[in-house]
C-alpha cells in the first residue's frame, strides 16, 4: 500500500469545536448506517425518516410529545453524567428510576401526607421521596464498592432487575386496582401541572387578542389543549443548572473530577475516596429517582408496569454523547426523546435501540480523533528516506 494512516498524539489543546463536531458527526453517521440496515431488510429509509420528523418535530403538539419523553432522559442523563465524571459506571439508573417512582407513590398510596393538601405540598413530598428512593438504590452499590470493592456495573445492573420485581409485587398485590396490574389513579393533587391543564385560560387569552396573542397564533400556537408536557421538565432544567454548577464551580465537583481522572493523585491529596464513591452514587441515584417520580406524577398518574422504556439505559448514551456536559445533556435528550416517540410507531420495533447502539459506538470511536491527529501519509516515501 502506498498510503497508510498515521496516528499522531495531540500535544496542543483540542480545538473547542471538535468534541461537538464529533458528536454531531456520530449521530449523522449512525442515521446513515441505520438507513442502510433498514434498506437491507427491505424497509424504506427515506419514508421512515420523513415519518420520524413529522412524528417528533412536525408540529407543536408532536414537539410536546418529544419533550415529554425528553424530560426523564434529562434527569437520567444528568444522573449518569455526575457518576461518569468520577468514572463510576452507574448502569443502575433504570432501577433507581423505578425505586424513585415507588417511593413517590407511597406519598399518595399510604398516604404520607393528607391528599387534600395543596398541590405544592403533595408534589413536594413526592419529589422528596423520589429523590430518597433513588438515593437508597444508589447507596447499595456505592457502599458495596467502597466497602467490598464490588464492581458497581454488576451490582447496579442486578439491582435494576430487583427493583422491577419489587415494583411488580406492589402493583400486582398490595396496591392492585381491582386486580389490574396497576395502582388506582392518583388524586389530582398529585399530578404535576401540564400545559393542557391551562388550555381554557390560554384560549381566552388568545381570543382577547393583543400583540403577544397575535404573535403566538401566527407561529401556530393558537391552542394548547392536548399538549401533555408537564412540570417535570422544569426539574430537569433546574437540575442541569445545579449539576453544572456543582461540577464546574464547586470544590466538590473538582474532587469528583480529580478522583475520576487520577485516583492515585486524589489519594495522595488526602481526598476521601470511599465517602465520595457512596455520595456520588447517591446523588446520581437521586436524580434518576426524581425522573421516576416525574414520570408517574406527570405522565401516567399511577404506578404500573413498564413505566420506563429503558430510560435508564438511554441516559447512559445521552450522557456520553453530551460529553458529560450538563447543558448538552438537555439537547441530546430532546433528540433521544424524539427517537423514543418515533420508535413507538416505527417497525421493526428494535430499530431505535439499534440506532442508539450505533450512535454510542460512533461516539466512542470518534473519541480517538480527540486524542490523535490522523494523517494519510505515503508509506513508500518513509521507507525510501530511511
Amino acid at each position, binding site marked *: 500500500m502506498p498510503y497508510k494512516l498515521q496516528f499522531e498524539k495531540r500535544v496542543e489543546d483540542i480545538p473547542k469545536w471538535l468534541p461537538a463536531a464529533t458528536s454531531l458527526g456520530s449521530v449523522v453517521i449512525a442515521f446513515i448506517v441505520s438507513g442502510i*440496515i433498514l434498506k437491507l*431488510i427491505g424497509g424504506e429509509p427515506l419514508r421512515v425518516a420523513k415519518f420520524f420528523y413529522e412524528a417528533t418535530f412536525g408540529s407543536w403538539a408532536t414537539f410536546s410529545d418529544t419533550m415529554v419523553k425528553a424530560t426523564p432522559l434529562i434527569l437520567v442523563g444528568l444522573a449518569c453524567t455526575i457518576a461518569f465524571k468520577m468514572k463510576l*459506571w452507574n*448502569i443502575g439508573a433504570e432501577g433507581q428510576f423505578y425505586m424513585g417512582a415507588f417511593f413517590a407513590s407511597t406519598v399518595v398510596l399510604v398516604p404520607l401526607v393528607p391528599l387534600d393538601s395543596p398541590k405544592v405540598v403533595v408534589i413536594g413530598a413526592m419529589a422528596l421521596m423520589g429523590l430518597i428512593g433513588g438515593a437508597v438504590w444508589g447507596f447499595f452499590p456505592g457502599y*458495596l464498592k467502597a466497602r*467490598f*470493592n*464490588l*464492581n458497581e*456495573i*454488576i*451490582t447496579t*445492573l*442486578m*439491582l435494576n*432487575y*430487583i427493583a422491577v*420485581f*419489587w415494583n*411488580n*409485587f406492589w402493583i*400486582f*398485590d398490595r396496591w392492585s386496582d381491582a386486580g389490574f396490574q396497576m395502582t388506582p389513579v392518583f388524586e389530582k393533587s398529585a399530578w404535576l401541572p401540564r400545559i393542557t391543564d391551562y388550555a381554557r385560560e390560554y384560549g381566552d387569552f388568545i381570543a382577547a387578542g393583543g400583540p403577544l396573542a397575535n404573535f403566538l397564533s401566527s407561529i401556530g400556537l393558537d391552542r394548547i389543549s392536548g399538549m401533555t408536557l408537564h412540570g417535570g421538565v422544569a426539574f430537569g432544567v433546574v437540575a442541569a443548572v445545579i449539576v453544572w454548577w456543582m461540577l464546574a464551580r464547586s470544590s466538590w465537583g473538582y474532587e469528583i473530577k480529580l478522583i475520576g481522572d487520577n485516583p492515585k493523585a486524589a489519594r495522595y491529596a488526602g481526598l476521601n475516596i470511599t465517602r465520595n464513591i457512596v455520595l456520588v452514587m447517591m446523588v446520581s441515584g437521586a436524580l434518576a429517582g426524581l425522573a421516576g417520580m416525574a414520570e408517574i406524577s406527570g405522565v401516567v398518574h399511577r404506578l404500573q408496569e413498564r413505566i420506563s422504556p429503558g430510560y435508564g*439505559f438511554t441516559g*447512559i*448514551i445521552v450522557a*456520553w454523547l453530551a460529553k458529560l456536559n450538563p447543558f448538552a445533556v438537555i439537547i441530546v435528550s430532546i433528540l433521544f426523546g424524539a427517537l423514543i416517540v418515533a420508535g413507538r410507531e416505527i*417497525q*421493526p*420495533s*428494535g*430499530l431505535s*435501540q*439499534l*440506532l*442508539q*447502539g*450505533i450512535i*454510542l*459506538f460512533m461516539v*466512542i*470511536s470518534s*473519541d*480517538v480523533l480527540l*486524542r490523535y491527529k490522523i494523517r494519510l501519509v505515503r508509506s513508500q516515501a518513509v521507507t525510501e528516506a530511511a
Partner: protein
Amino acid sequence: MNPIIILHAGLATGTILLFAAIGEIFAERSGILNLGVEGMMLLGAMAGFSTSLATQNVWLGLLVAILAGGVLSLAHGLVTIHFQADQVVSGLSLTFLGTGLALVFGEGLTGQTPPLVPSFDIPLLASIPFIGPVFFEDHSLLVYVGYIFAPLCWYFINRTRPGMHLRAVGEKPEAADTMGINVYRLRYLYVFVGGCLAGLAGATISLSVSPGWYSSQTTSGQGWIAVGLVIFAQWDPLRAALGGYLFGALRRGILDLQGPSVLLGFTNPLYINSNYGFFLQMMPYVLTILALMLGSRAATRKRLGAPAALGVPYIRGERGL
C-alpha cells in the same frame, strides 16, 4: 422439590453461563474487558434460532450463532484495541448494538419452532444411581460438551504455550511484546473467541435449554450474570463452570419452592399467594451480588486478582504510567 430434577435443570441452565463466562475469561485474560456479553448472547440466540428455522439445520444454526457473536465482538476489539476507547463504555454500547440488531432481525420469530439441539442419554453412565439421572440422562448435547470444554480450557490457559502467551498479554503486555508476541493480534483473537462463546451461550438458550425467541426476554440479564460469574470464579474456567452449575441449580430450586402447599411443616405462603413469587424471581440477582461479596473477600484473602493489564489499552512503543 426433587433434588434430581433441580440438579438436572441446574446443569442445563448452568451450561449457558458456563459458555458465556469462559468466553469472557478468555477476553479478560488477554486484557480486554468486554461487557457486551448480554448483547452478543442475544444476537447469537437470534442468529442461531433464525438460521436453524430457515435451513432446518440446527448445526448450521449453532455455527451462525457462534460467528454472529464473534463478528459483533470484533467491533469491540477494533474500538478498544486500535482506537483505545474506554472498554467499559464500548462494552455497554456493544450490548445496545447487539440487542438492537437482534430485535430488528428477530422480528416475527416468536412462536416458531426450528429443529433443536438433540438430547440423549449416555449409555452405561446413565444407569449409575443418582449420578446417572443428574449428569448423564436426557441432557442436550451442549451440556455434555460443557463437561469436557471447561477442563480443556483450564488446561489450555494454565498448561500450554499459547495459554501462557495469553496470560502474558493480559498481565504484562510490554514483556510479551519483547518476547515477540503480537499483543494486538492475540487480543483480537481472544476477544473474538469470547464473542464466539457468548454467541454459543445464546444459542444454548434459544436452541436447547429454553427453546424459542422471546425478544430481549430470551437472555433476561444472563449475560450480565456471566460477567459477574467471571469475577466470582477469579478468571478460572473450572470455577466458572462450577459456579454456573451451582447458580443454575439454586435458581431452579428457588423457583420450585412455589410447588408444595406445606413447607417444613408450615403453610407455604408462596402456594397461597403467587405474587410472593416476585421475591423468588429477585433471587438470582440477589445471589449474584452475594456471590460477588463472598468472592471478593476470598480474593482479598488469597491476594487473587484480575489480570494486571485488564482494561488498560496497550500502545506499542509507549510506556504506561
